[in-house]
């Protein structure tokens, strides 16, 4: 039956997207490593890392879309799960520095040494082993999401109330991680990473590999998400989004469905964070900032919520715009970005992808409406 479930996910659109992603995952690193720098198709390393970052964001956006676009849970706290995953990876990378830190302490990371800490806090144990860190990357965000969701959905916190307490969650974590006493490096966070699984994080090959991995993970999760949304469970989720009480009266335990997709999404966000950190080379509490969560939501909206391709397109477009504007019109880029959000909400309420789909749908058979659902009840 698992296979059946998987086959569900493998419809034409999914095939195309996954194919494109895999192609990118292979071609870009190739173009970066094999072609000589002066070759017209050579991809400079900074662009590889940059795109790696975009794709990590895309994965985060996909996670947000899964809960918001398909289950109507507007999370303003997904950056929390993203950051937690990032910290788990960051802690592994910290432990890998070993004696190469400025104080050459074999165990303690630099920031602990100069805060005069004598031994490693318990929650840092095990992070010297990759498998453990990798496990934590999904378990920590997953666990927190599960507990949070278990309470919230059981007591039927919905709509904006849920959004705001998710924001409270990430804000609380933000403040907590800023405290140096927490033992996560305070404001400076974790940085100056040396190598991952023995490979130098600075090396072009490592960067290329990380990029490829990011894109492949995106492909994998895209595939899973597509399978889920096409399964009966996916249909129930949409049902919850559009008519929660009707779903209940059909005998579905709505809270369990929400909890399932919520936890899964948090884990995806965690993985995104873990892939993000080694590429940007730093993780610090500001990743928890509620503003980041809102931005993630905006990527989804721009790309088109309720479609799986939308968030990917949105995340990449917005961040590419950000990179571009901050370089080209540093003084005025916020105007451009702000305007983009307004324009999209006013003129492309279904987001880029949603609009395109609607357009095609109407082209093919005028009878059929846009694939995108009406606004979920708040």
């Amino acid at each position, binding site marked *: 039956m698992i296979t059946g479930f998987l086959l569900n996910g493998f419809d034409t659109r999914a095939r195309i997207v996954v194919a*494109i992603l895999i192609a*990118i995952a292979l*071609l*870009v690193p190739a*173009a970066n490593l094999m072609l000589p720098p002066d070759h*017209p*198709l*050579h*991809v*400079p*390393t*900074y*662009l590889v*890392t*940059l*795109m790696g*970052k975009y794709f990590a964001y895309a994965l985060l956006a996909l996670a947000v879309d899964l809960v918001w676009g398909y289950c109507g849970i507007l999370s303003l706290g997904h950056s929390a799960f993203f950051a937690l995953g990032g910290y788990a990876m960051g802690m592994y990378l910290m432990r890998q520095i070993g*004696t*190469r*830190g*400025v*104080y*050459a*302490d074999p165990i303690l990371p630099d*920031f602990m040494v*100069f*805060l*005069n800490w004598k031994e490693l806090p318990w929650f840092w144990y095990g992070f010297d082993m990759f498998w453990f860190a990798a496990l934590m990357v999904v378990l920590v965000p997953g666990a927190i999401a599960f507990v949070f969701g278990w309470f919230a959905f059981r007591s039927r916190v919905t709509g904006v109330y849920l959004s705001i307490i998710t924001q409270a969650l990430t804000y609380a974590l933000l*403040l907590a991680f*800023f*405290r*140096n006493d927490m033992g996560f490096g*305070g*404001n*400076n*966070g974790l*940085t*100056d*990473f040396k190598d991952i699984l023995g490979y130098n994080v*600075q090396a072009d090959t490592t960067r290329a590999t990380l990029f490829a991995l990011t894109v492949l993970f995106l492909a994998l999760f895209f595939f899973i998400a597509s399978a889920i949304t096409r399964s009966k469970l996916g249909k129930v989720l949409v049902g919850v989004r559009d008519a929660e009480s009707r779903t209940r009266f059909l005998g579905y335990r709505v809270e369990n469905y929400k909890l399932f997709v919520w936890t899964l999404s948090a884990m995806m966000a965690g993985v995104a964070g873990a892939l993000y950190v080694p590429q*940007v*080379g*730093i993780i*610090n509490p*500001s990743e928890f900032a509620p503003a980041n969560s809102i931005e993630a939501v905006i990527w989804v909206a721009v790309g088109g919520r309720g479609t799986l391709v939308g968030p990917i*397109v949105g995340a*990449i*477009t917005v961040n*590419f*715009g950000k*990179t*571009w504007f*901050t*370089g*080209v*019109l*540093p*003084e005025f*880029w*916020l105007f451009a970005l702000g305007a983009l959000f307004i324009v999209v909400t006013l003129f492309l309420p279904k987001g880029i992808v949603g609009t395109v789909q609607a357009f095609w749908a109407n082209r093919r058979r005028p009878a059929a409406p846009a694939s995108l659902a009406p606004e979920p009840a708040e």
Partner: protein
Amino acid sequence: MTTERSTAGQTRATRSLMGALAFSLLSATGLSGAAAQEDTIKVGVLHSLSGTMAISETTLKDTVLYLIDEQNKKGGVLGKKLEAVVVDPASDWPLFAEKARELIEKEKVSVVFGCWTSVSRKSVLPVFKELNSILFYPVQYEGEESERNVFYTGAAPNQQAIPAVDYLAAEEGVERWVLAGTDYVYPRTTNKILEAYLLAKGVAPEDIMINYTPFGHSDWQTIVADIKKFGSAGKKTAVVSTINGDANVPFYKELGNQGIKAEDIPVVAFSVGEEELAGLDTAPLVGHLAAWNYFQSVDAEVNATFIEGWQAYTKNDKRVTNDPMEAHYIGFNMWVKAVEAAGSVEPDMVIDSLIGVSVPNLSGGYSAMMPNHHITKPVLIGEIQADGQFEIVSQTAGLVVGDEWSDYLEGSKDLIADWRKPLSCGNFNVVTGKCGG
């Protein structure tokens, strides 16, 4: 110039994003290719123009542009004009790293002036190391670092904190200390150093109160009241403030409102300069102190000319100057001098020739680049005046050398940095005799 090129490239890229990404790579390479052959020397400016740090950093961006402007009037460097490449890392630390990479790898800048917070510096550090470029960092910071590619023109703790404490103890007979700071690395380290220093001077532990607050802390009622209480124990009390820029305004307003006068409990700050005071009604604050290596009120010819030029450049005769600006002034002139000495902008050559370079600072003396990539500075202590300026009440006799590895910290007391050959090491351990801790 920059704008044109990138726009052309990027529009292609944007289109490509809709379809396959390949195009954007094309365009990007187009950019980096074009960037190479230019008859100007490019100078990167990496300061936040938006977000929380814009408050402090925009001024530094303007400063660098002003310095470049002046230099070009003098005919540039090595006969080439300088071209500023300004980007906005938007107070977003990963973005700092990304932008640094863009400046060096894509824009091919020869040197970068930038960063304010330690975390932004930490974030760009690996990039500068990997791509072997030069960063001038103009802000007072916690020390505990010396990198080959970074030149620290701001104060190390020993160039600010300790002289200030000495002044208060000697001149105002302070016996009881409140170390109040924002909870991040700079205050933590500075306070650690000060605590060790004070204890060494025989101050009783119960006469030291340490307090940390979050960034942008806005409600100071409780803490100011606590300080008042702590200060009313009979002994003369002073506050040593490492509170970060944004939280200072409400802090000082609360001080003023709760009627804590400088005569009763003086506050000496390390992060409050003319720029911050410009946002404050300073009348109630007269007599509170700050320790810097430069004040706008410094009575020196060179300073007068600088202020004049600066205000003319910004077309604003009220525009103040401050210590980090002087740091950039010094750093920029050092870089120019080093480049001319090396006869090239080749990073390795410039890095080597920078050590030992000595240029005028704005307080009438000279500052020299030491082998540890920190510079020599005078330490000034000023009292806030009603007009938002500082009146200098004390100045160290000679210059103080920036001490990168503090002797008051467990981990770093055995470390030294010396980037001259043959040692060329940023963290040489004199005990083990090994480079690298």
